[in-house]
């Protein structure tokens, strides 16, 4: 470690202003920061109130996503690893390019975005789409707004929506049957090209036709779905990690689940048959993954506590409405993006109401 430190100290002057490699200073400091921790303080949101810094924070999310990732390797084969590599490579290129142009430090945000992105894609989509989606997500979802901490939207979701609206047939028809047995598909599908057998019949599509998969399969993941979204068990496992590490806010998660399940129950009582059964709806599609890992993104979700509740209720309701009444079978990603758009407004309203309250007290 000492040697490494010496090495870094030794090459640092090369990247100084006016030297040959000054353009690549962000690349240098990225590696420096990765090996050793940074001693700088963050000037922008998200802020931490304890020793935890952005980097460690992002690292915990990556650990929490690992069960779902390993699950996706088991279900769909090594192809997911290729998707992850492409996603990281493209994310890093865009991030570093902007750091160089803006003469800023490289942010670690793409470590999470790049990890989440392949997990919310159909396992059989062409790799170039992974690249295009990631590039668009980071560029339009983040860099346009000024980089990590300033983004309105969750970049991974922006990338996914871009693909879903841009290449709808590939995105709705590239599902792969999950493997089962002791090794699953672990040793299969390591080719770069898409697997031969692709399907479009996910549980939510089937539900529109009145066929409901058994809840057991939904829970353990023996279904078609996005790479990391199939097994509810693995998502909840990772979800508990972010929850207890204090990274995901429990209010957001609880309010989304309560609102989604509550309205679903209400709908089923008021007009039976319109919406899917509550448990089925909660275990299928991207609901759990979105709730635990995407809606809770500290940058794009509200800051005030009351606004978090409103935000959660809003997302749950919209997701249910889109799933039940629209031409799309899955509404979670649209619901979260809408929630992202409204979250500054929720904060604003909460703060104003509170100000009025204080003004009265005075």
């Amino acid at each position, binding site marked *: 470690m000492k040697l490494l430190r010496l090495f870094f100290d030794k090459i640092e002057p090369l990247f100084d202003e006016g030297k040959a490699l000054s353009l690549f200073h962000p690349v240098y400091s990225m590696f420096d920061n990765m090996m050793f921790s940074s001693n700088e303080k963050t000037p922008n949101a998200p802020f931490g109130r304890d020793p935890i810094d952005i980097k460690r924070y992002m690292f915990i999310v990556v650990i929490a996503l690992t069960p779902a990732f390993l699950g996706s390797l088991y279900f769909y084969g090594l192809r997911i690893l290729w998707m992850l590599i492409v996603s990281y490579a493209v994310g890093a290129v865009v991030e570093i390019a902007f750091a160089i142009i803006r003469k800023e430090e490289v942010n670690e945000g793409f470590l999470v975005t790049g990890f989440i992105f392949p997990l919310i894609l159909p396992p059989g989509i062409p790799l170039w*789409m992974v690249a295009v989606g990631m590039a668009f997500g980071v560029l339009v979802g983040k860099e*346009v707004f000024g980089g990590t901490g300033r983004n309105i939207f969750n970049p991974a979701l922006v990338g996914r929506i*871009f693909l879903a*609206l*841009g*290449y709808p047939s590939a995105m709705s028809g590239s599902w792969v049957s999950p493997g089962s047995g002791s090794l699953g598909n672990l040793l299969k599908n390591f080719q770069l090209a898409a697997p031969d057998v692709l399907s479009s019949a996910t549980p939510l599509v089937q539900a529109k036709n009145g066929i409901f998969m058994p809840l057991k399969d939904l829970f353990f993941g023996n279904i078609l779905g996005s790479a990391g979204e199939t097994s509810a068990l693995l998502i909840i496992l990772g979800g508990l990690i972010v929850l207890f590490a204090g990274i995901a806010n429990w209010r957001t998660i609880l309010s989304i689940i309560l609102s989604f399940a509550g309205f679903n129950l209400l709908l089923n009582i008021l007009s039976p048959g319109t919406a899917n059964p509550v448990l089925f709806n909660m275990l299928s599609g991207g609901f759990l993954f979105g709730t635990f890992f995407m809606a809770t993104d500290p940058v794009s979700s509200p800051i005030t506590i009351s606004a978090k509740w409103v935000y959660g209720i809003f997302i749950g309701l919209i997701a249910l409405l889109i799933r039940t009444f629209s031409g799309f079978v899955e509404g979670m990603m649209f619901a979260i993006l809408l929630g992202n758009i409204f979250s500054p407004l929720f904060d604003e309203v909460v703060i104003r109401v509170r100000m009025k309250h204080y003004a009265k007290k005075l």
Partner: protein
Amino acid sequence: MSNNLAAGQKIKIRDIFADGVYRFNPITVQVLGICSALAVTNRVDNAVVMGGALIFVTAFSSLLVSILRKSIPLRIRMIVEVAIIATFVILFDQFLKAYAWNMSKQLGPYVGLIITNCIVMGRAEAFATQNTPLTSMFDGIANGIGYSIVLILVALVREIIGSGTLNIFGTQILTLLDIGYTKNLLFVLAPGAFFTAGFIIWGVNAITNTKEDANE
């Protein structure tokens, strides 16, 4: 609207074109006429015809408004301008319907909507009412060209990314579909133009700002 050319001053034609096409480009700088820029830029052909229509309308409406500028009663100035613009727009629309039916169908209501395009009205009101006829006509043409260039740029990006091909008036210039490209429907539809136009404006602003920084 922002304009660095004072009324009545002797104006160089080169300045008029520099303003209309680049310095005060109606789309990238003034952000006018965005509606049609989003709607008709799915194919380069459409963008070319739409740009042509706008050049025609701004040129002649500016010319006519400028000729009449001393005799138009002040109270109905705006109404007169709109009537003149509407006449030219309807003329162009009828011409398209008679001689280029397919193009007219492609552009749909957007040719008619040039009447409400802020660029035309803006040039008539801000420039033609205060300048001589010929200068005003050049100003109209310059702004029309500025608009057309951005439209065609957006359409180029959208047609290539969206449809994976590039056809200009029946001649295929490029196709990506043979090498396994899939059509991107977001770019076929209006949101694609929203992003493309956004990136173009971003790019132009970034360049302009860098230049200004360098000048300071």
